[in-house]
């Protein structure tokens, strides 16, 4: 019987293999022989930043095809679901490259996922513009080992230096300068993109003579934040700088509103989304977060793109939308220009590009680190105000309303 048992297993095994489709692997196809140009879009298909990536990529691809494609070749989009986890991200990347045979990649939410994907790029010789990942470790890798990591570009604002400096500027100029608060609490989630951000922010504040009464990097598994806010309150903090992307934002905001520890405003990725009000039952009233896109004339293209997106998808663009939309255009632009799908040609093109996108009139990449060029970005601070309104309160250049202090807060 055992022989049959094993015979059966082999049979089942063979059946199971029949599930799968055969094909052949070809890195860097020949442009002339390609029927269509294939773009892979990576991101968690069910999470807001991922939806922002895939929607933006879809919209850009449709527009490019409507305008005649690349030298008459249509652009095809393939979606890879990273679920926001490194392990799933690797599977998704392998599927896009090995099964769907995409020529270039965009997208990806979460620096941890992008870090896990980076080593695969030289293996498959595929160019990838990351549009939702902020850790500087990614571009530092390019700088340190250009030969290996040259395939990686980042169209997004790094957290370690640029977001951190911007956050420090906001807290110093606005919260301290205009509101007069001097005691700060820093509440940061414990993830890759924050590992330098939070400690450096603390240092900057202290160097400016401000007090940081509370500082904690918390585990993203935490469910109940009340004790944390209680602790913050007991330190006498006047302003809470939250740095949150992956953690449970809804319970965090609820616990904040319930404990009434202090006004809170810095960075909460979930709070950038227009649905956050509804998701928290309005408990985000008064919270501030910076965003990377707003319905403001960042360039001539911004407002038309914003309105078209809202009309098409019924929701506001999120922070990944603008970066992804621009990146898809940049990639097709280069392919069109070089008439090539060879990774070296594309890398060369991207290193020299100066693109007029929806976020900035002169998007370009640093030749050594492949990070965005300095100064070519904006980050408006947006506050949730009564009536589910997202109001830009700082900097004054983009201001659409005044800062409103929470009613329960007495300085």
């Amino acid at each position, binding site marked *: 019987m055992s022989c049959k048992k094993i015979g059966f297993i082999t049979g089942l095994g063979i059946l199971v293999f029949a599930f799968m489709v055969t094909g052949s692997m070809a890195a860097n196809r020949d442009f002339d022989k390609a029927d269509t140009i294939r773009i892979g879009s990576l991101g968690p298909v069910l999470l807001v930043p991922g939806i922002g990536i895939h929607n933006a990529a879809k919209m850009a691809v449709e527009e490019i095809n409507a305008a005649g494609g690349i030298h008459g070749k249509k652009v095809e989009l393939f979606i890879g679901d990273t679920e926001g986890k490194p392990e799933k991200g690797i599977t998704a990347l392998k599927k896009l490259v090995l099964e769907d045979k995409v020529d270039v990649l965009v997208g990806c939410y979460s620096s941890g996922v992008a870090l896990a994907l980076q080593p695969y790029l030289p293996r498959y010789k595929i160019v990838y513009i990351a549009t939702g990942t902020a850790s500087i470790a990614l571009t530092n890798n390019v700088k340190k080992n250009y030969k290996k990591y040259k395939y990686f570009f980042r169209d997004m604002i790094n957290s370690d230096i640029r977001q951190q400096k911007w956050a420090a500027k906001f807290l110093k100029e606005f919260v301290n300068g205009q509101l007069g608060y001097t005691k700060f609490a820093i509440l940061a989630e414990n993830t890759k993109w924050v590992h330098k951000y939070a400690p450096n922010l603390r240092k900057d504040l202290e160097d400016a003579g401000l007090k940081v009464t509370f500082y904690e990097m918390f585990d993203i598994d935490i469910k109940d*934040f*009340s*004790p*944390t806010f*209680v*602790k913050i309150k007991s330190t006498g903090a006047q302003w809470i700088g939250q740095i949150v992307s992956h953690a449970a934002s809804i319970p965090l905001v*609820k616990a904040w509103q*319930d404990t009434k520890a202090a006004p809170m405003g810095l960075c909460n990725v979930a709070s950038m989304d227009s649905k956050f009000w509804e*998701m928290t*039952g309005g408990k985000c009233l008064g919270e501030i977060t910076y965003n990377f896109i707003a319905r403001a004339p960042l360039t001539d293209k911004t407002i038309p793109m914003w309105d078209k997106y809202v009309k098409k998808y019924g929701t506001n663009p999120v922070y990944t939308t603008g970066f992804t939309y621009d990146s898809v255009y940049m990639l097709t632009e280069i392919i069109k220009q070089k008439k090539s799908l060879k990774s070296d040609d594309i890398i060369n093109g991207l290193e020299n590009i100066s693109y007029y996108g929806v976020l900035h009139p002169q998007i370009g990449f640093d030749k050594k680190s492949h990070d965005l060029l300095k100064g070519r970005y904006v980050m408006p601070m947006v506050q949730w105000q009564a009536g589910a309104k997202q109001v830009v309160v700082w900097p004054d250049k983009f201001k659409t309303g005044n800062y409103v202090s929470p009613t329960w807060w007495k300085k």
Partner: protein
Amino acid sequence: MTTFIHILVLGAIWGALYTLIAVGFTLIFGVAGIINLAHGAFYMLGAYLAYTFMTLLKINVPLSALMAVLGTAGIGMLIDRYGIRFMRETHVYVLIITLAFALFFQELLYAVYGPHGKAVKSFVTGEMLLGGVHVSYQKILTFFVAGIMVTLLWLFIKKTKTGKSIDAVAQNREAAVLMGIQPERIYVITMGISAALAAVAGVFIAPILEAVPTMWAFSLFKAFAIVIIGGLGSIQGAIIAGMLLGYSETAVSVLISANYPDMVYLVAIILVLVLRPRGLMGTRAH
């Protein structure tokens, strides 16, 4: 001082919630001798049904809460009747089928509602100051509901005929059978009660935290921990250990760091099992 009061208040609320989740878990073990890994899923179903009725269908709060609890109890009874019954004696099987059910509900809710947290509006708005500490009415309500439910369970078991039958089966199944009690009927009823208690916790936690498809694991681990610390099958043990865990976790997260509360229950389980394997008030030796 405020910090101390905070620990006192928040700890009591969490302790009461944990207790509410854990008593159902320990009850079904005490009566039917099964470890129900789908217990956390009942808690999650309670929260999601509350969300469905209250937020999506806009039904009023008491009715939605009642429907959520009864609905979950019904699901629990169905699982017991059609999933567990015929293999009840094999504890490996029960562990695994209930784990499979828990994962199934996770994926079901994931597919239907997505991975995002769903918020439920507070049943009562507003808050009060307790010794200089803001506590929302929702939390106070949750505390009292948990207390009432546990008391009701106690009264039910000690005073009603069905309750006494449950107690009888828990204490000695053979004797109960001789007295004319049908154990299978008792098991199904107990599973219903156990599921209902978890669902109550879920319904009341939904406005404080959120309803997400992974919430079952968290509550299951806590219930398992409490019941092991308190002693499997002991309701008193579950109450004591539940309150202890609530207080110690809150104290750890307020006084040390929010990163460490989970360490409390993990280390507690290992220590308890190494030092006193029957738990604080265990009724059954391992």
